């Protein structure tokens, strides 16, 4: 029996009939062949978030992003005019990787006036122009104009930097994001510059981890031991229902109503939460942020808990009612491994008490992530046995169903366009 209202069709899933209700195959998460297709069909076609503008505080600030699934490294830089640009991280002379530190496979960031290749010293400006060639006279008809860094399509929305590795993107970033996501315009992301950045290597397909964070059906069970016994029992009995799901093109969102932590009986809370006034849901005393954009809390939940925006293909923005947000990125490294990145963003602490509340939220976040990560490796292993191939997904797992469908659609679409040529 559901306790919350559902769409007139009777369920969220049937509200989007293209999803169907049949059991779902997870072959897309265990097949090396499907992964090979995803490289081109998804990661060289979709807009990919690589970071935020605050990571490029001044002219000459740069960072690199390894997109291994697309066999590509990108360097993102704040140019002389204050704009954000991206280039393929490849020297035009003989193809050395241009920007890297000690280990060529590791990402790096910093500040420079120009990029100098470690191999033979060619130098490029922040606009990508080739400015200097060692012993230029030894070359044959070399026009430096023709040997600038190769640009990557790069656009910014709400301070989030996206790149598109296609030669010509099929859509602008704004069109790609669509109305559901861009209705977040105006959220004060730019005020939340205190950042905790986490990274993990996960032994599971990237879509499996996205699944773990796009349904909360698992929360009362897997994370039972994260909360005092009395709270866990109450949570398992009530189960979980989200009041609102929404799909828009390849993107999706879930909105939840809030638990007001400090109104729970004290034996439902951890002693540390009482003193720090913080926990998994973030600080209890959030900042005053003023008016919120219409895209936030789209179902008007009161109390409202969070909105989790799942941006195709591999980016999540999760906004908490307490006035802070998280991002997740899932960067595939093989069909059964990926690199997970999680960032927590707060309005900078004004004093030690606020900073301790942020620390409490961040430390708690990691404890949950550790459990999720471990479960996923177990899932990957058992899926790979292929003992079972199709899995029933319930209505609270609609977003998982949608993700796998979009992945299949994009791969299908790509195959169609490539066999017809």
């Amino acid at each position, binding site marked *: 029996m559901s306790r919350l209202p559902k769409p007139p069709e009777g369920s969220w899933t049937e509200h989007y009939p293209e999803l169907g209700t049949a059991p779902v195959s997870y072959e897309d998460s265990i097949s090396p062949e499907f992964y090979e297709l995803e490289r081109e069909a998804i990661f060289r076609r979709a807009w990919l978030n690589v970071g935020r503008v605050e990571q490029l505080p001044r002219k000459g600030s740069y960072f690199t992003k390894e997109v291994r699934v697309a066999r590509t490294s990108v360097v993102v830089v704040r140019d002389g005019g204050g704009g954000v640009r991206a280039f393929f991280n490849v020297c035009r002379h003989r193809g050395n990787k241009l920007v890297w530190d000690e280990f060529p496979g590791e990402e790096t960031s910093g500040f420079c006036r120009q990029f100098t290749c470690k191999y033979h010293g060619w130098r490029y400006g922040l606009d990508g122009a080739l400015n200097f060639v060692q012993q230029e006279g030894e070359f044959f008809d070399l026009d430096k104009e023709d040997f600038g860094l190769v640009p990557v399509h790069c656009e910014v929305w709400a301070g989030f930097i996206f790149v598109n590795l296609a030669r010509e993107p099929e859509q602008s970033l704004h069109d790609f994001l669509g109305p559901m996501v861009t209705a977040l315009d105006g959220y004060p992301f730019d005020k939340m510059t205190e950042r905790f950045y986490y990274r993990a290597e996960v032994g599971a397909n990237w879509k499996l981890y996205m699944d773990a964070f796009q349904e909360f059906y698992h929360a009362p069970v897997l994370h039972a031991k994260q909360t005092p016994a009395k709270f866990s029992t109450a949570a398992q009995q009530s189960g979980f229902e989200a009041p609102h799901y929404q799909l828009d093109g390849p993107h999706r969102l879930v909105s939840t109503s809030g638990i007001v932590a400090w109104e729970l009986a004290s034996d439902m809370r951890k002693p540390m939460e009482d003193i720090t006034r913080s926990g998994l849901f973030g600080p209890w005393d959030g900042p005053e942020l003023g008016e919120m954009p219409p895209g936030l809390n789209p179902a008007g939940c009161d109390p409202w808990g969070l909105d989790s925006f799942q941006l195709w293909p591999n980016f999540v923005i999760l906004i908490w009612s307490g006035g802070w947000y998280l991002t997740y990125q899932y960067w595939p490294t093989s069909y059964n491994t990926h690199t997970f990145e*999680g960032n927590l963003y707060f309005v900078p602490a004004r004093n030690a008490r606020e900073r301790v509340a942020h620390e409490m939220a961040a430390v708690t976040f990691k404890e949950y992530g550790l459990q999720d990560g*471990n479960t996923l490796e177990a899932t990957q292993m058992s899926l790979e046995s292929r003992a079972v191939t199709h899995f029933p997904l319930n209505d609270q797992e609609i977003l998982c169903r949608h993700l796998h469908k979009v992945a299949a659609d994009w791969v299908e679409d790509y195959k169609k366009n490539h066999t017809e040529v």
Partner: protein
Amino acid sequence: MTDRLLPAGFAELEPFAGTWCLATETERYARRMASSMEEMRTFYDAFFPRLEEAVAHCDTFPLDALPEDARRLLQLVYSLVMVSMSIEIFHQPKAVDAADAEIERVREPVP
């Protein structure tokens, strides 16, 4: 002259300062994993009742201009947050059901 690490009012916590005043989450997490429950319980029992006062003490200074001893006291608070996960919830150093999963904090605010 004194070689105390923490503010004067927190003398009874000095024995923990050498072990638990750690600047980064990576160090604090590693120390938690390397500690016995008994060691963490001793630290928690000694510090938890004074936690509120410790935060209040740090709050008498601007966050970006903490004196050395207050900065170390704040690091001790972060360590208590870390240890509380083991003491209050899991009753073992590592999160239950986390096995060998690892998540690294690569960047964090200072202090």
